[in-house]
């Protein structure tokens, strides 16, 4: 549980943010124009919730939210086709380069946290925790562990079945980068699905399976899966809303972002939408099963938006700028 002071603090901060930034309801109803959002399907539920409430107030605008995936969303965003793109990982160097070539400036705003959750079958009695080195053994293309005993000799000599989200998803990119490094390759003999429910079913149906996806999918299927605590160097930590938010669940806590086209941000309807987003994301992300940002990061996001600071800020999971 969160301490009462943190809750009160977060409450007052969000109140202050709301008061400072939110355009009044009467003004919202006068806005017209189109706000085009696309991108990550992981971030989609939050943006959908924001768009639903925003559309309820700014009835004359047309807000649309698509789900092209983080990579697909950036492709469209960097071509200038969308106003805002959802992303479950920061923009990559090559994507930022494309944006630059097309003269697209952007504002990067973190909006919520997600914990990448590693799960095994409930009948799997041997895995009680894993560290990054072990995950690397299981997922790497260079030294793939065929059997559980290849990871730890004490474990049974049975073939590991690996389940992974699709290669176009930000979840895949993030997991790959954290476990295998920027240039690492994930093994190819695994079951891939764009639909996380398929991964849930896959892991729930095979005693020797291992898989990973966003915490929200675990939370809805907790009875069918076994959560694996991850040792990121400071002892094994079980992912939960608390450990994800306070950053102790490393290295798999990750912030999720929206990227706002700077030219679009000058349009009143888009500006009002982003104001509304930042003011309500803490409450709404919780409502749809995600973890709100820690208070300092919320403040930083608000400040970035207020100053319309351009470019990627290279946030790490604690909300600090990485040099």
């Amino acid at each position: 549980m969160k301490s009462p002071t943190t809750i009160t603090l977060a409450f007052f901060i969000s109140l202050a943010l709301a008061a400072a930034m939110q355009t009044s309801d009467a003004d919202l109803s006068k806005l017209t124009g189109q706000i085009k959002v696309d991108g990550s399907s992981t971030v989609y539920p939050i943006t959908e919730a924001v768009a639903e409430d925003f559309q309820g107030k700014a009835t004359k605008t047309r807000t649309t939210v698509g789900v092209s995936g983080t990579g697909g969303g950036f492709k469209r965003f960097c071509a200038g086709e969308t106003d805002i793109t959802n992303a479950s990982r920061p923009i990559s160097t090559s994507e930022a380069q494309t944006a630059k070539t097309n003269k697209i400036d952007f504002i990067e705003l973190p909006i919520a946290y997600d914990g990448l959750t590693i799960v095994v079958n409930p009948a799997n009695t041997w895995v009680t925790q894993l560290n990054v080195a072990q995950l690397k053994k299981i997922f790497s293309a260079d030294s793939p562990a065929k059997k559980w005993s290849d990871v730890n000799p004490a474990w049974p000599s049975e073939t590991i079945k690996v389940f992974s989200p699709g290669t176009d998803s930000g979840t895949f990119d993030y997991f790959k980068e954290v476990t295998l490094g920027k240039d690492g390759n994930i093994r190819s003999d695994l079951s891939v699905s764009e639909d996380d429910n398929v991964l849930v079913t896959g892991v729930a149906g095979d005693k020797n399976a291992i898989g990973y996806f966003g915490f929200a999918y675990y939370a809805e299927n907790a009875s069918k899966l076994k959560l694996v605590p991850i040792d990121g160097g400071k002892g094994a930590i079980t992912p939960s809303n608390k450990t994800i938010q306070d950053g102790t669940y490393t290295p798999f806590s990750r912030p999720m972002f929206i990227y706002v086209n700077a030219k679009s941000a000058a349009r009143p309807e888009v500006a009002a939408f982003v104001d509304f987003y930042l003011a309500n994301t803490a409450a709404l992300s919780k409502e749809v099963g995600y973890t709100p940002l820690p208070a300092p990061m919320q403040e930083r996001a608000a400040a970035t938006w207020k100053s319309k600071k351009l470019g990627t800020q290279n946030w790490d999971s604690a909300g600090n700028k990485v040099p």
Partner: protein
Amino acid sequence: MRAISIRTRRILKNRAFLALCLFSTSATILILALLIASIMVQGSHFLFNSDALSAVFAHGELSQLTKIIRWEFLTNFASRFPEKAGIYAAVIGSLWVCAICALLALPLGIGTAIYLEEFAPKNRWTALVDFNIRNLAGVPSIVYGILGLTAFTRMFGLFGTDKNSALSFGPDNAWWHIQLPFGQGLLAGGLTLMLVVLPIVIISSREALRAVPSSLRQASLAIGATPWQTASKITLPAAIPSILTGAILAMSRAMGEAAPLLVLGIPVFIANTPDNLNDNFTVLPFQIFNWAGRPQESFHQLAASAIVVLLIALICFNGVAVYLRQKLRNPLA
């Protein structure tokens, strides 16, 4: 003795074959029935009002009859609250895009079929065209999505981007507003679906025309009618019922497609209905796809409810096709 045993064996073989056929048929029907039943059970929560259901069937209160169906599922926009979520935008989008697709694909497809079947000389060129059309009918629809993205959504980048169009007519909110490129608008969707169903329309129309006895054509030509008169007065009227059946089946295919529109990048969440042909839209299969991929069970139920609505729409389409075939059946054909 021997003759009888051969006869018994033949009868036995006959019965075995009959049993096999019966088994295959019933297995198919059973699987379909199971599928529909499981979807109905899953989808019933958001389709029906349980209070009104029990009022009507258990207590005979007929005044509650219209309240059995949860109309708000049909008239609400998508929402994060499953109880408030509806498919209005998706239904309207599907209807619009299918109407556009039909208006474009049917004249083009049927016209092509008439030319190829009635007028075109039988040479290498027409054989090549025929071969290609048949191939195109087998191309996965997602490939047409990629073509649609380049040709209609972006128009090869010739007219700027959708948001910054170089060529647009009329104010943004006018019903006659139109701009190039089409972006993720209704026209882009309709045209892409047209690409998907065109080969099907052409092939089924050609089959229909080919089924018209050639004696009819020869008789018409023999009494001095021109090929055009023969085609318009004799062949086409005789083939119309089958052509329409094929056309309607092609339309139900268009209604069920999600993949090509996914490639265009159409949105899922949209809380407006289109005002003009350039407005964004979403379609039922895409909404189903999105709901089915959510972690929460309630959204899977919503997906099932939307599948039921889609199935009912498709059954209606096919029903119309059957009716037209019966109604328009030409005694000549």
